[in-house]
């Protein structure tokens, strides 16, 4: 940090209200050149609002934005980008039907006037190398996994000469190794007098990478501290306003159901090829027992999406077998999987788990609309549906003012909790949970993971996809590592080390569990 230099970004008295809530109240924030500044806070603490104001998506009701000691008003994200402020959003802003190269060059003044796919791909490859982010220039965005899409987003902002880079949960889809690479990139980025604003829920990560940390709560800034003066428990306390019992346990309660002898879900040599004929899953064999949490570790984009899909009947296997309770389900439909008692918290909740334009009540019923009391002799009974939706919302601790309102109006965290609760209700045998804690704040993560433990203790088999190794080590009975569509190792969390698992994530064969 350069002493005496004016802050690169200076927010003073930023205030923004939405119907019913004050999202930001009189927030001051300085970001110095050369620093990585972390923004911490629970869901709804005002982090996103503040950053949306800084990037010109919202206009503040009151307050000043100064960039390089010069007062600015941004009418659009393009204005902010021109002033050197770029953001990598948690929900990607990519054109899904365009290629990676096209997305990188979209709306960029440095895009050549005459566009040839080969040139764009070449330029993209060069840029990707320069910024150390591996992307496939020719791939279409909708073929990419969430993790790969995020890499494209990061690259897109970096190449636009951002001086202030705002990152919303950037490491959520990276391995520890890749996260470290990203941090190195960020470090050299700020070393040139730039700044990074890092929005994160991961306390240890923030402590490791950030120079200073600002904590928001309920739309107000609680404090800005130097990272070296902070500890995880102190930050957690500032975020939620009280102590939280962090850290979960693999320990079972005495009353918990024992692990079943026979597997409830079994995959035998499962192979999945995509529309282009590329192998996405390669001879996967796995067994899940009732009363067990099987963790699936790995970098996003290594077949997690496909694996969760074949386990829930939303995608068919190219070869191999899927058995539920001993019978062959390889050719069964998603409905038959659900009827057997397989719940599914999908990776991309908004696009595959919900119909955003339909009401909260309609969405809550997606799994139970064919059952009593909502349905009787083919009739759908809206009043019963509403009653059930209320039950679900209260179990998920989501406050819904109007159940007839489109679910797309709820916040991401609340959508996630509702989906999780909805799926837990039907998961009488198996729950396939893809990143259930992603994007939730510490308190909500704790609750979400406790749900999984509850299910396990009730004798249900749980598949937990996660990018948080710590989370898997604390929670899972076994951890299988997925790399390039194959299982590269199955570990016992009691004995395995982070390094061993990390090696398997990078493709080195480990034990077969």
């Amino acid at each position, binding site marked *: 940090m350069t002493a005496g230099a004016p802050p690169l970004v200076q927010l003073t008295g930023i*205030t923004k*209200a*939405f*119907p019913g809530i*004050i999202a930001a*109240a*009189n927030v001051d924030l300085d970001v110095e050149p050369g620093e990585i500044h972390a923004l911490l806070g629970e869901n709804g603490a005002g982090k996103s609002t503040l950053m949306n104001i800084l990037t010109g998506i919202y206009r503040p*009701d*009151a307050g000043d934005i100064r960039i390089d000691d010069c007062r600015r008003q941004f009418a659009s994200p393009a204005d902010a980008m021109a002033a050197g402020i770029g953001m990598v959003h948690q929900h990607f802003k990519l054109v899904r039907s365009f290629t990676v190269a096209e997305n990188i060059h979209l709306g960029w003044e440095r895009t050549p006037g005459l566009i040839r796919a080969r040139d764009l791909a070449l330029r993209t490859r060069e840029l990707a190398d320069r910024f150390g982010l591996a992307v496939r220039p020719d791939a279409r965005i909708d073929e990419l996994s969430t993790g790969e899409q995020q890499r494209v987003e990061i690259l897109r902002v970096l190449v636009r000469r951002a001086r202030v880079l705002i990152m919303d949960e950037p490491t959520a889809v990276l391995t520890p190794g890749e996260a470290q690479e990203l941090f190195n990139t960020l470090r050299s980025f700020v070393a040139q007098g730039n700044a990074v604003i890092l929005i994160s829920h991961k306390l240890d990560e923030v402590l490791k990478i950030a120079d200073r940390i600002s904590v928001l709560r309920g739309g*107000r800034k609680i404090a800005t501290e130097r990272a070296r003066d902070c500890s995880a428990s102190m930050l957690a306390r500032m975020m939620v306003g009280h102590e939280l019992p962090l850290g979960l346990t693999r320990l079972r309660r005495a009353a918990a159901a024992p692990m079943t002898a026979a597997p409830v879900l079994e995959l035998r040599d499962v192979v999945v090829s995509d529309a282009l004929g590329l192998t996405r899953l390669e001879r996967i064999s796995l067994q899940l027992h009732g009363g067990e949490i099987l963790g699936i570790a790995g970098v996003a984009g290594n077949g997690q999406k496909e694996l969760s899909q074949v386990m*829930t*009947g*939303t995608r068919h296997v190219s070869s191999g077998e899927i058995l539920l309770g001993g019978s062959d389900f390889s050719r069964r*439909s*998603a*409905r*038959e*999987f*659900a009827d057997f008692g397989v719940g*599914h918290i*999908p990776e991309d909740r908004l*696009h*595959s*788990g*919900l*119909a*955003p*334009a*339909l009401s909260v009540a*309609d969405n809550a*019923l*997606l*799994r139970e*609309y*064919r059952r009593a009391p909502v*349905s009787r002799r*083919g*009739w*759908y*009974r*809206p009043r019963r549906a509403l009653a059930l939706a209320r039950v679900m919302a209260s179990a998920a601790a989501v406050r819904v003012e*109007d159940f007839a*309102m*489109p679910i797309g*109006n709820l916040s991401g965290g609340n959508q996630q909790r509702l989906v999780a609760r909805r799926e837990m209700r039907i998961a009488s045998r198996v729950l396939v949970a893809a990143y259930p804690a992603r994007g939730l704040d510490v308190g909500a993560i704790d609750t979400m993971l406790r749900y999984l433990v509850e299910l396990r203790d009730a004798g249900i088999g749980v598949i937990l996809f996660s990018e948080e190794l710590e989370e898997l080590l604390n929670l899972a009975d076994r951890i299988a590592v997925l790399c390039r569509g194959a299982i590269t190792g199955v570990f016992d969390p009691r004995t395995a080390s982070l390094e061993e698992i990390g090696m398997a994530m990078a493709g080195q064969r480990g034990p077969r569990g």
Partner: protein
Amino acid sequence: MAYRIQRLPTPPRAIALTARALAVGLALITAGVALAWKGASPWSLAHEVITDTFGSAFALEDLALLVSPLILTGLSVWVGLRVGAWNIGAEGQFNSGALAAAGVGLFVPGPTAVVLPLMLIAAIGGGVLWMAGPALARAYVGVSELITTLLLNFVAALLVYWLATGPWLDPGGRAIGTTARIPAEMPAVWGGVHWGLPLAVLLTLGAGTLLNYTRWGYEIRVCGANSDAARYAGMPVRRHLMTVMLLSGGLAGIAGMFEVAGTVHHLQGGISNNFGYLGIMVAVLARRSTLGVLAGAVFMALLLNSGTILSTRGVDVSIVLAVTGLVLLYTAIGDEVAHYRLVPTRELPCP
């Protein structure tokens, strides 16, 4: 005190309705200004339109005769939208249904009580057949139904022209370009108004009930709102898409049969009278509401009727088409504006 603009996720009902009313009013005012500019007197024309529309039972019957096909074509498009398909081809399915019904009516002898149901079945078949290609192409190859249904409209219209002026031309030769009178007639329910109107209303209420109060309808709504979520829940997305698209075609076909057997009693070129295209307007105006289909159809019938009246006063009929377009435009704007409101900015309490 300063004010600022705030967007609401769902507009309050009263505001939404007011915005609609303002949109219609504004469209009429725009048309009035255009008429005044052309030298006509909008006030006296408006007065004539109102008295001629509501002034006599006979005029009201005319209006009712316009409402029934508009309800059905509107319902056809509206039902398609529920599953996420834009049926731009209600016009073609109308013609194809009218053609099939007329074929039965002209060439199958028998008592009316037998022939009418046969005509109805033929008309549904005609509409479904006209939709079958686009539905298959959309469900299996992902071809946009916007284009396919639209293009088939011209095929159907030309087919009707050809039959009515060629092979099926009235051998008696009394009228030019139409078939002979079809003996089977829809019974009247009130004066000159046939049973088509109450049946259209019943079909609309039935479709609304099916969509909102049955399991099948719930699945349709989910498929239409997000087919990925529908697949995730294990719903047969493709089958639902096909079924509802064919149903949409069948409804427009019924509209064609009602027109042939209830109002026109011949098959003739231009029998569809743009009802299919106006059905798109009805469906868009109705948005998600079932009753909105009925209201939209009445509104469009009023506009059409006004056009007929105006043309007898020497005003170009295209003014009505212009008003239709303006209503759509202003409604779209009004629906969006209804989301916003002005709120006074207040001082925030200090921590």
